[in-house]
């Protein structure tokens, strides 16, 4: 079984984790036109790439960001959201 490293609890088996979707930045609801908003809501990018994703270590409830290459299913890095964002990561 695959391993994932929770930034708080260390490496654990993947069955202890839940996926929370790709990190996506929401357009400003006041400024985005209907088409741009619909694009945000419905069009998710499924192309394989290195993606920043929300993951939760379910027994402890820790949410964090995993950077994962979805082409090879390689987990490159995991970090708490605040730290990840503090490093100026671009959101797709």
């Amino acid at each position, binding site marked *: 079984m695959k391993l994932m490293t929770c930034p708080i609890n260390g490496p654990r088996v993947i069955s202890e984790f839940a996926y929370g979707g790709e990190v996506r930045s929401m357009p400003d*609801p006041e400024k985005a036109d209907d088409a741009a*908003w619909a694009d945000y809501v419905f069009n998710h990018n499924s192309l394989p790439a290195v993606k920043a994703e929300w993951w939760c270590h379910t027994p402890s409830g820790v949410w964090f960001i995993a950077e994962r290459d979805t082409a090879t299913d390689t987990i490159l890095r995991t970090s708490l959201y605040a730290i990840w964002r503090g490093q100026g990561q671009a959101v797709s």
Partner: protein
Amino acid sequence: MSRRLPHVQGERIDRGNTVEFTFEGRRLQGYRGDTISSALVASGARVLGRSFKYHRPRGLLSAAGHDVNALMQVRREDGSVPNVRADVVQVAADWDINAVNTRGGLARDRLAIFNRLAPFLPVGFYYKAFHSKRWFPRWERMFRNLTGLGEVDLRAPHRSTPKRYEFCDVLVIGAGPSGLAAALAAAEQGASVLLVDENSSAGGSGLYARGGATQFAQQTEALIATAQGNPRIRLLTSTYAACYYADHWVALVSPECLVKVRARGVIVAQGAYEQPAVFRGNDLPGVMLASAAQRMLYHYAVVTARRVAVLTSNSEGYAAALDALAHGVELAAVLDLRLEAGVDSTAAAQELVRRGVPIHYGVKPIEAVAGADGGVASLVFESTAGVAPGKHTLDLDSVWMSVGFAPANALLHQADARMSYERSTEQFVPQTLPPGIYACGKVNGVYSFADRLEDGRNAGACAAGQIGFGIAVERRAAIAARECPTHPYPVFPHPRGKEFVDFDEDLQVKDLRNACQEGFDSSELLKRFSTVGMGPSQGKHSNMNALRILANVRGEPIERLGPTTARPMFHPVPLAHLAGRGFTPERRTALDSDHEARGAVWMPAGNWRRPEYYAIAGKSREQAIADEVRAVRARVGMIDVGTLGKIEVHGPHAAQFLERLYTARFANLKVGMTRYGLLLDEAGVVVDDGVIGRLGEQAFYFTTTTGNSATLFREFGRLATSWDLPVGLVNLTGHYAALNLAGPASRAVLREHTELDLADVAFPYLGVREAQVAGAPCRIMRVGFVGELGYEIHVPFQHAADVWRALLASGSRFQIQPFGVEAQRMLRLEKGHVIVGQDTDGITNALEIGMPWAIKMDKPFFIGQRSLRVLAKQPRRQTLVGFTLPSSDEASVQARRRPKECHLVLDGGQIAGRVTSVGWSPTLARCIGLGLVTPQVALRKHLRVRIDRGEEIDVEVVQAPFYDPSGERQRVGDPL
């Protein structure tokens, strides 16, 4: 006619311990340590089983766990066990053994008729013959009778097979010379090593491929002893690694159970499967792999032949010839497919010549011919060089084939290794390996004994060094072979066929050629059409030859084709090993035993069980539910709602957080009050609903629906993080039990157990209070889900039963009635209240369910708000309407002609919606329901609904709520 030798150094049998067993009705003897096959061969048997399709007699082939034509039905004390692998399973006293898949016994199998019908059973026969609908059932019956292997004994006792878990630094798979060397090298550097081998003892080919000498066996024995003495090495025998999963997670199959190993590095030293030559009669009993004969000699002291020819193209074959001579087997000839011996074979060839063994070169086997017993009696071949070029016939009773190997690289494939075809060894070798995976020995294309030790040591040192034990070592390239161990094309078609490529499925050369002819000429298609490699041995002795034939037909180099994928598990695993105990956890509320005692009929709700209703003797389900409904409307009832999700939010941002989550407004919610909110997704679709109560300025307590509580709580945590709203979220679902006391008399019942002022002014509708109830600290919400005066009492789990019983006791003067989920559903349906997930589906948005009061579009933000703005501009796709059926005294007639949930609403023959809730209301004495329908039909007076059996009926559209539309009853209640 014993074929047992005197003591052989290294034999695995215990001669002091005789084992008596029965085979096909004959009483036979072996020794403890014998496999079924070795005991049978020792007592002179050559035919061990029948082939799957043509029922040809078959004998020993690999003696390594892949002899799928020697599968046995074994009747023993604890039941009858099917498909026992005779070549590896040790025989035990009083086993009653029969070959599987015969009619009338092994010797006179009546189904051998299929051998003669073979010309009428071409490749793809099934696909071509069995497509007629009319004939298929007949064919199916016939073939189900004819085919199949052993028989499952349904009376076999239950055996539990718990899983085990193991951890190690380095897992070494295969304890042959290279695996032993690797394990020792890794352990020397400080790594903990788990060394596994599928055989009953370690040593691999080091112990049986002796070449008539003792040095390799002695060196191997010494390695085993050193490994066993090393405290960092644990050796597991009779255990095979069946699959590799991500991050070095390997499933080991031991005789007793499945062992899941997490390693930090994995060394695959699984060696290679010896491959048969493909020529007419290559399946006759007596024709076997040279390694099988050597295993018999050295593991069981059994000689498989009196007079043998060794068909070879490598130094391993010459070594086997010397092994034959060393044990008194008459060597009829060595038949080398090559034009001359290779560098590693020369010395052995000279020795054989010196001892008078004729050696033929440039050999082309023509056919092996069967004798009276069905086994091989002679071999016809041609040679172009050597003692006497020309066509010859040799009388013999065995042919040992040593023409090449296929690497046992299934696990490497599963680990995502890239393979390349290496011409110097004519085999696939790993080209690039993922981090932490190593391959050494024959699977890595390294064959000589000394080279394998060298390769193994290097791999072991690398694996340990890479994870921080000892010094980091560079992995050296595989040591190049001096003599090619594998013939590039050991295939010799015969005009009359019967040259078997696949012994599991009885496939001949022409079958594969015909499959290619029909267009199935890629390795994956060829496999599926011809079934090559799909039998119990999973192609371990057929895939490489099939691939060589395919390459030959296509005129392409083999590397262009690529092997087929070996999925987990690459070797069959007993189903019992994989089976686990059923484990579906079921949550029970604090009041579960009270419900049980009261005759609750259970229904699942999420992963809880809840009372659907309470059964009453002499009353039907419908009557019991109707009584529960009437009790709530007229007197008082109580329902366990402990399965609701219960969440607390704390902090200065708590109100803002909830405003962003739910459609309702919370900033202005007064302390001590609750408010109903819808939870939407980003598309505006209704996901959940709940009642949110404010306990303090910075503290909220709220409920979610039963099924969604765990995932919602998790998602709330994510949203709080991503919104940068530091709130404290506490999941109290398990901590609190909850019950809803509802009905005109509920206030009177509750008053007896609390000092809280229950007067309407002090504790109004939609209020929330913290107070003692029957001595327990509770949270009480005045809610109106069922449409009567009601109190939802949340009580710490451990006090729940006390409170429940106290309320029941004091409610007895009002004939208080516990009610179940069904009654609650009807009560809320009478009120027209929506159940999210029942009256809504995965695309129902918040504007479609008629609750504009619950959606505060003028808030700055809530999830789904922006999408609702888009949707508000568009025409409604559907809308929720109430409907009713005409009142009728004949409830029974009505029941039959009543719509059910999910029945379709029609409009001119087109689907215009569906019924979402429906039931017979005891309060209104008629059938009522809700439906999601198009706005056009919602405006009509009647809906046309298609009910059971395609019948169509009209129902009347009415405005919900059906009962107490002004909501007076829940607001004030009766002044009882």
